[in-house]
């Protein structure tokens, strides 16, 4: 498909959040590079990665912000929640404390993102079945109660990593199609590339708004 100068029609902004050492950076690395980064230094502040995926024939560029789990950088990382279309909330299935902290992560996410933000719960390190500390059932119940999507994944083996990112994108794309997500909202986390003529259904509304503008 040809889409003019850009070969993607949307940019979706994601954030990855969760406690220190749950494997956020590894998940991102696995998704963008398809490699496991065994000795990953702790993230300071935020790092980012991108990848272009395809959903329903539309090329979408994912701009993923991998945040630091450390409390010390919470002030910095919080500024990245704003305008995220997708939030991947990660815990480590071998460490219960990371699971226990989910509710506070969720509160942060709900408070700092907009209501249309898709939240996906990932139980990472599912390759370490022997050290499991949080059952699948328990986490899936938590996800259900809070209306989150949920998988157990492994950044090491790559299990379900792709799925988590793609499912989130599908859900966001669906929201756009349904009109639940307003592309013109200030912090929708989705950018529509103006590369395709006629793909911007909001031009007319915009024209009307122009006259109301104070300046």
């Amino acid at each position: 498909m040809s889409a003019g100068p850009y070969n993607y029609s949307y940019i979706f902004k994601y954030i990855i959040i969760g406690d220190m050492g749950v494997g956020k950076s590894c998940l991102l690395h696995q998704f963008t590079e398809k490699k496991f980064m065994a000795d990953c230094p702790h993230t300071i502040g935020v790092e980012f990665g991108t990848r272009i995926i395809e959903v329903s024939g539309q090329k979408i560029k994912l701009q993923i912000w991998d945040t630091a789990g450390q409390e010390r950088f919470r002030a910095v990382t919080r500024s990245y929640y704003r305008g995220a279309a997708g939030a991947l909330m990660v815990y480590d299935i071998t460490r219960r404390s990371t699971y226990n902290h989910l509710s506070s992560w969720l509160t942060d996410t709900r408070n700092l993102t907009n209501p249309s933000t898709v939240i996906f719960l990932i139980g990472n390190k599912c390759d370490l079945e022997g050290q499991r500390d949080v059952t699948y059932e328990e986490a899936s119940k938590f996800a259900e109660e809070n209306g989150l999507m949920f998988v157990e994944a492994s950044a090491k083996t790559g299990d379900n990593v792709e799925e988590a990112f793609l499912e989130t994108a599908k859900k966001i794309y669906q929201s756009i199609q349904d009109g639940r997500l307003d592309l013109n909202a200030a912090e929708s986390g989705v950018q529509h590339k103006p590369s395709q003529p006629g793909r911007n259904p909001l031009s007319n509304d915009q024209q009307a708004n122009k006259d109301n503008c104070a300046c």
Partner: protein
Amino acid sequence: MPVLTLQRSYKYIMYATKQPSLRIKQADLKCKSGCGFYGNADWEGYCSQCYRNHMDVERQKKSHNSQMPDQSRAQMSGFTKFEEKKRQQTDKKNKYLKSLPVFRKSSNVKDSGRPEKYIDIMRQANPDANKLMVEFITQYSQYGDIVKKDFFKCSQAFSNKVINELEVKPIEDLAETAQNYYNLYQNRVNSNSIYEDVPSEIREKLVEFFEKYTMIILYSFLFCPPTTNDEEKDLAIQNRIRKLSWVNAHHLDCCISETSIEVRDLVYTAINDLLGMDSMKAPLEKLACVVKCCRSVVEVLQHCQGGPVSADEFLPALIFVVLKANPARLKSNILYVTRFCKDSRLMQGEAGYYFTNLCCAVSFIENLTAESLNNMPEQEFEAYMSGELTCVSAWESALVACEGMHQLCEHLAFLKELSERTQIVQNTTQSLRDDMQKLKEGICDSVESVLERTPLIIKPRINPLTLTKEQLFTQTTQYGPQIETTNEVNTCTDTDIGQNYYLQNLSLTQINALDSTKNKLQLDITPCITLPEISKALNSNDFLSSSSAVDNKSIESITPDDNSYLGLSKVNYDIDFSDLSTENSVAEDLTPEKRKSPTPSFVIGDPFSPIGGSCPIAQTPLVPSSVFPQIESKNDGFVLPFLDDTEENVEDSLLDKVEVAPSASLPAPLVPTSSEYSGFSKQGSRIPNIPCSTGDFSSLNFAGNSNM
């Protein structure tokens, strides 16, 4: 901050040197044309001014080539060798990105309609710009509407221009446009009559505000624009810094002590300042973050050295901080500031100095080799870079330890909170318990007071033998049930059984004259024998009118303390008694039964009680066998309405005082079943059932307790 004297004598800057060095001279930061301003790697080592001149020359040289992308690529190739080398290193990493034409957008494929859409997008909600607009209005409105109008007109013109050129021109040209507009506005503020009344310091602020406001509006188009490969560069340096995470202060020949807690905290402050840069939108604000960070670095050094800081020490420390911070989109931020921050700010002053240092630090990081790190052996460097060799640096472990400490504190705080909450729960429980006790006492008190006010005392039966018939009739006004029985004496004398019964009753009464509801009940039941005769009287108008009188009265206004009503009700009773002695007696007797403790023996003693069901054995023989069945059937017919009537009185006296829900356990027989007395039974069923349970004091108390 020690004064860093600028030495203008040096002509060549560090960018010309092949080897990145930790020790750079002040002059190395200067423009390579020797004009004295700070140079910048992104300006190929020139200062902004000289770079533009240089670019113009370049452009002329290539004027035969009209293709913009080639030109921007030519500019790219103008970067240092290291830039290229570094890119080759990261090429592998970014293969997937390179395969996409996105990042190499050719700008000559263009239709004139496109810029319009950008304007549309620009219209989308921009809370930051709106905030600034409000800020402007509050700060500068005093200088008149005309200033405000002009300001917004100019910023509008600028943003429209940039947006229209966005896809037509390379980002460097847009940067130039921006600089031109900044200057234009500055000249306008200083020369146009509109701004005549504005003081000069405010004029400067206005110029600054112009830059800030327009850049915040244009941020999403000009920061890391998709027409450039800025993002690619960001990813490359991010990756590189991650790979260099093993580098420590010693490698950098830097005096930062990584193990000291205070130093670490100061370094963290510097790191946080630098990290804040990416969240800012205006170049001015980003620059302010850099300045803040660098000041913190100086503080760190001062702390470590305990004295003044030389410029030589500053750069390694800054490199260390940049390496540890790995700030997001570092390249994009630097490029954005170099392109769109007002030139003059970057070319001189503290901000210019620090920003140039940051650029040097980034350049060093991009190009460093084993040699640059305190002459580390090449193999060791390679081993570190490939991840073969890992070392847990003091910094890294301190980070983990910090988090451990943090979690510990978090848990302690959580425990404290929990114990506080437990205390609160305990306190509330205690107060709840007290409240319950108070409520209980209150209910008991009010029940008692109600009982005192409305004594439904069954007075001892007056010996009927001493009374004449007339006397008995007068007595009825007070002692309905008893009189009934005496009344019966007259009606029943002809029956032997009746007489015997009566006599038997009398003797019983005398024995238990003072207070025994049980006995009274038993006594009162006896008149039942006469039921058949009296049943006719029930139909009489007399009876109906009297009962309706009670009803009317009760509907109108009856307070429990209404003595007149109580009296009246008693009168009514009596009227009834005269005709329906038996029925009344039963009715009256039921009430006391309910009020006193419902001992099983008592229930047995009450044959007409709806609960009691059959007649007690003791009394059955006394009732004529021929009449007995009739009594039972009639009983349901008209005794019960009366019963309700009696209860109504009780209810009226108690209702307002004690709020106890009517017991649903009232037996079904209370509802009249006989169709004969439809008027009466209607009334009876309309009357609430409450009294039956309210009459029962013991059950009342019990209910009160259980409700609590």
